[in-house]
């Protein structure tokens, strides 16, 4: 599983292997949030394979999961 962090999360997000029993976006966020509480902020969006996931979704080994903080283009 590939995990990407954007914006200010790049500076604070945890690195290291994800335990094998983390098999959906909810569990992943909870596990990462235990190491970096900022990831639990409800404004942070979770994206799997370029699609924003509002709820929960199972994860495979070849999924790419991205954590996006509040956006500010323009």
């Amino acid at each position, binding site marked *: 599983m590939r995990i*990407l962090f*954007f*914006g*200010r999360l790049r500076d604070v997000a945890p690195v290291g292997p994800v335990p094998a029993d983390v098999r959906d976006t909810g569990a992943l966020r909870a596990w990462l949030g235990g190491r970096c509480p900022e990831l639990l902020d409800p404004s942070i969006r979770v*994206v799997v394979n370029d699609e*924003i996931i509002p709820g929960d979704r199972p994860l495979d080994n070849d999924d790419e999961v991205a954590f996006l903080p509040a956006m*500010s*283009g*323009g």
Partner: protein
Amino acid sequence: MIAIQGPPLDAAALLADFGAQAAGAGAIASFTGLVRRENDGATVSDLELDHHPRLTEKAVAAIGADARARFGLIDVAIVHRHGRLLPGEAIVFVAAAAPHRRAAFDAVDYVMDRLKTEAPFWKRERRSDGAFWLEARDSDHAARRRWEA
């Protein structure tokens, strides 16, 4: 034209291309957002623009398509930088061509409001007093809400 790109972003050259293709338009409005030299009284040294390569392009294309349909545009352009930018450099160029001026003005205004609040970009400003991630302000969210309902 929708593009997320590195340097250079030449607003005048983009306006020239856009105008040459907007046959039949009576009105072309444009907006260029630039890296400021000062913010909150501190000197800006550079701006780093983070983005999500595929998702950002998709989101920006959707904003362009929405603007085109909503305002009956002849054409729309959104060209956005990523990477490291210096003060005075262009961050974004938006242009809209329409039969009349109101639609062209509103479309550019609308695109900017959506980019500010919904486009997957993240900005870190390096200034004389530190480095700061910029977020959309309350005024940006309020501006975005003008287009709802």
